[in-house]
């Protein structure tokens, strides 16, 4: 819907205030990898990119550049029907990168990639984000996503369930959670309570402080000359957070 491929019942998605269909040079502004990226089986990888480079008004040199970037140069002149799933996925990523866009939208980008390929893809996305691009990844591989994203949006049943930095979403509504053990647990409990931080003891005698990061707890303890034995951030996995957020209330 965001890309104008499916008609929306209501609402609109915009890029910099414009619908995708209205962008003056769409493939130079938004790069897209769809889950079921398809290619003409009889066309070579290079020719597939040449066609889309021509349609997107990108120079032919970009074809060689993106082929190199996704590691497909040696297979560029083979017909796509001989490509593995991973090679097809790399070709789809090359298409997305053709116009050197500042926005990347990737639907299940790790599909078909082997472990080194997944790591390559993760590094690629991080490098794109590091140079200022917005990278939107839609995926069901939550453990994979958790390793590479800054912010998470959880949508279920057509409704927004959570939206924010990864740590915040993992921490639930209370924000970050810290597990801390101190030489004087009662005194630490008082210090945290004085700061308005809610902390409960667990079975092992450690305090579980909610809405506070380990950094802050450590600093408070240091300010009061209190020795700490353990200080660690507690978080749910993204999968646990997703299941909690999307659970049917009934």
């Amino acid at each position, binding site marked *: 819907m965001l*890309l*104008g*491929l*499916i*008609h929306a019942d209501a609402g609109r998605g915009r890029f910099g205030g414009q619908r*995708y*269909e209205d*962008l003056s040079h*769409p*493939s130079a502004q938004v790069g*897209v990898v*769809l889950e*079921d*990226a*398809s*290619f*003409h*089986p*009889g*066309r*070579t990888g290079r*020719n597939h990119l*040449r*066609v*889309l480079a*021509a*349609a*997107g*008004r990108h120079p032919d040199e970009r074809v060689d550049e993106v082929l190199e970037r996704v590691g497909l140069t040696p297979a560029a002149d083979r017909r796509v029907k001989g490509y593995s799933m991973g090679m097809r996925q790399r070709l789809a990523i090359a*298409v997305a990168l053709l116009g050197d866009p500042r926005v990347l939208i990737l639907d299940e980008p790790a599909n078909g990639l082997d472990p080194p390929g997944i790591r390559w893809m993760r590094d690629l996305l991080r490098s794109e984000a590091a140079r200022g691009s917005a990278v939107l990844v839609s995926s069901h591989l939550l453990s994979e996503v958790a390793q590479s994203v800054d912010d998470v949006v959880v949508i279920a049943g057509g409704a927004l369930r959570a939206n924010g930095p990864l740590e915040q979403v993992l921490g639930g509504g209370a924000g970050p959670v810290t597990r801390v053990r101190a030489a004087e647990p009662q005194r630490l409990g008082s210090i945290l309570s004085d700061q308005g931080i809610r902390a409960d003891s667990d079975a092992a005698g450690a305090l579980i402080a909610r809405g506070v990061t380990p950094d802050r707890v450590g600093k408070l303890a240091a300010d009061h000359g209190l020795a700490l034995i353990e200080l660690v951030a507690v978080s749910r996995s993204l999968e646990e957070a997703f299941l909690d957020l999307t659970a049917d209330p009934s």
Partner: protein
Amino acid sequence: MSALLRAEVLKLRTTRTFLALAGLAVGTSLLITTLVSLLTEPTGDSVLTDVFTSDTSSLFILVLAVVGISGEWRHRTITSSLLAEPDRLRFLAAKTLAFAVAGLLLSLAISLSVAVVGFIVLGLRDLPTPGLGELATQVGHNASVAMLLGAFGVGVGALVRNQVVAVVGLLVLAFVVEPVLIGLAPEVFRYAPFVALPTAASDISAGDSGLGGVDLLAPGLAVLAMLGWIAAAFAAGAALLRARDLD
């Protein structure tokens, strides 16, 4: 539009289907020309029609255009095409132009080949050959018909997503339905787009094309009528394409 046109022409050049069917079109045209010029005794009046109108480009470009647009759905490349050019009307217009250009080039290539072979064989048999002026006029007619059918094929193909249904339907319409309808009501179906109008636009007489008894339109009128068919097919195809979800 020129970038899109270039992309569509590249699509044609980079698959074997186009090259194979274009080769087949040249081959069949040459075969017909060779056989006719070897086995018949054309007169000075009939040689142009008998030997130099065996240009099969119109049929092949029609099939290629239908394959070209329906192949976008078959191979699901329609998604990447419309991500590169989200304006579906411009996309379809570029494809229509590309197949018109392809029809023109294919027809010219066939005409050149047919002319070379026809002149050689007829010369060897010491039979009359057409004047270059009238041959050039016929080549122009053939090329314009191929252009029109290339454009028409894209509009027709845009109406049917399934490639097999599209191609088989096209062949049935062209070889079965339209000839039968022309036989039943020639005054109405002389405006039909697959056989009657292309024959008229090629300036080939009804008798020479197996449409004896049909009062074909003049070539200029036939071209105008074909343009009307192209506009109608394009409008219907564009409306359908714009309404479709690419799920």
